[in-house]
């Protein structure tokens, strides 16, 4: 089985930023992404119901270069005003062509 190393970028942000973020990561080269509805608590308080707004978790598996582009985009455009967190982990995938 041929495994390749790629990056898994995880973004947690307000639901209302979902479409914007999806567009950005697609433009920057991600070939796909997976979205979950999550609740959360952080510096900006609890986000746990439709009233206070909810979070989404967007996960995308990408090559290193796309990973860099995504995190710098988010750092520049979203960090200044929005409560967004991003983290990166190493994953191995089969069929790496699917993600390039």
């Amino acid at each position, binding site marked *: 089985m041929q495994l390749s190393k790629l990056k898994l970028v995880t973004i947690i942000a*307000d639901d*209302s930023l979902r479409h*914007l973020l999806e567009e950005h990561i697609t433009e920057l080269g991600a070939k796909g992404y997976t979205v979950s509805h999550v609740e959360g608590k952080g510096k900006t*308080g609890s986000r746990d*119901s439709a*009233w*206070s707004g*909810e979070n989404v978790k967007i996960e995308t598996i990408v090559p290193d270069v796309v990973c860099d582009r995504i995190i710098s985009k988010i750092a520049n455009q979203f960090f*200044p*005003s929005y409560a967004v967190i991003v983290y990166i982990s190493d994953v191995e995938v089969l069929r790496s062509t699917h993600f390039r």
Partner: protein
Amino acid sequence: MTSLLSPMVLSFGLGMIAARLRSDLKFPDSLYTSLTIYLMVAIGMKGGYKLSVTPLPEIIVPLLAAIALSAVIPLWCYWLSRRVGKFDRYNAAALAAHYGSVSAVTFSAALAFQDTLNISHEGFMPGLLAIMEIPAILIAIGLTRMSRSNGESESVVPLREILKELLVGKGSVLLVGFLAIGFVSGHHGWEQVSPLFDMPFKGVLTLFLLEAGLVAGRKISDLKQRGFFLIAFGILMPIAHAALGIWLGKLAGLSQGGAAILGILAASASYIAAPAACRVALPEANPSYYLTSSLAVTFPFNLAIGIPLYHYMASVIF
């Protein structure tokens, strides 16, 4: 008094108590969303039907009055929050957006109130509800952007984008859409759907208010910060806005019931459209100010005291 003892108001109170007692009672999010959709469809449809069976009343002048109200209310709300409340411009703008915009649920409670007391109003009222949702939000966001110093980094979303999203937001779409559907499908259409959209309306509202009470109860503890200003603001402004609304409504030729509703709209604070817009366009503002004052102060006040009070004010003004 009867109003205070209606299942609707009591159910809101029960929700608040349950939340204070840290009950595990919680509505699934999708139930909340479903009830919201139901209320807006029902309000729109019934308004449209009523328009279709009564001679079309003069609508232009009341419409202008409604727009005027939602254009000026945010101005002084912003000013007061800045000067008296000492809020930064983001939080002041968020408060202005909320109190200039309107609440569909307060409107529903007013409908239930009038229905119980056999007070009538013009059928196009849901149209005013729809029209008053958006302008204040835009104006408030505009205010912050105008007053920003040049060097500051700014949020990613341009104003026209926000306008576009508000215009096709679910509130506008459902209210305007079903107003039209109710109007076009007329008496015959209404008969087909009224067993769902009319008869159980107050029951659904009772359930919704239980959930609203739960959320309001949880928010109350956020009033520790700046609570005094927020409570005063959240009670006095609605009374002033109601008076203004009723008076403008009378000038605009509305019936007494209609003018009371316009007053209630002016007095109500948004907690669907405005919070959603603020999360995107004013992310720097703190929800524990705007959401708390709107949901935990103004909403219960309007529900329990405001609605009967404003009707009394209308009877004095008329």
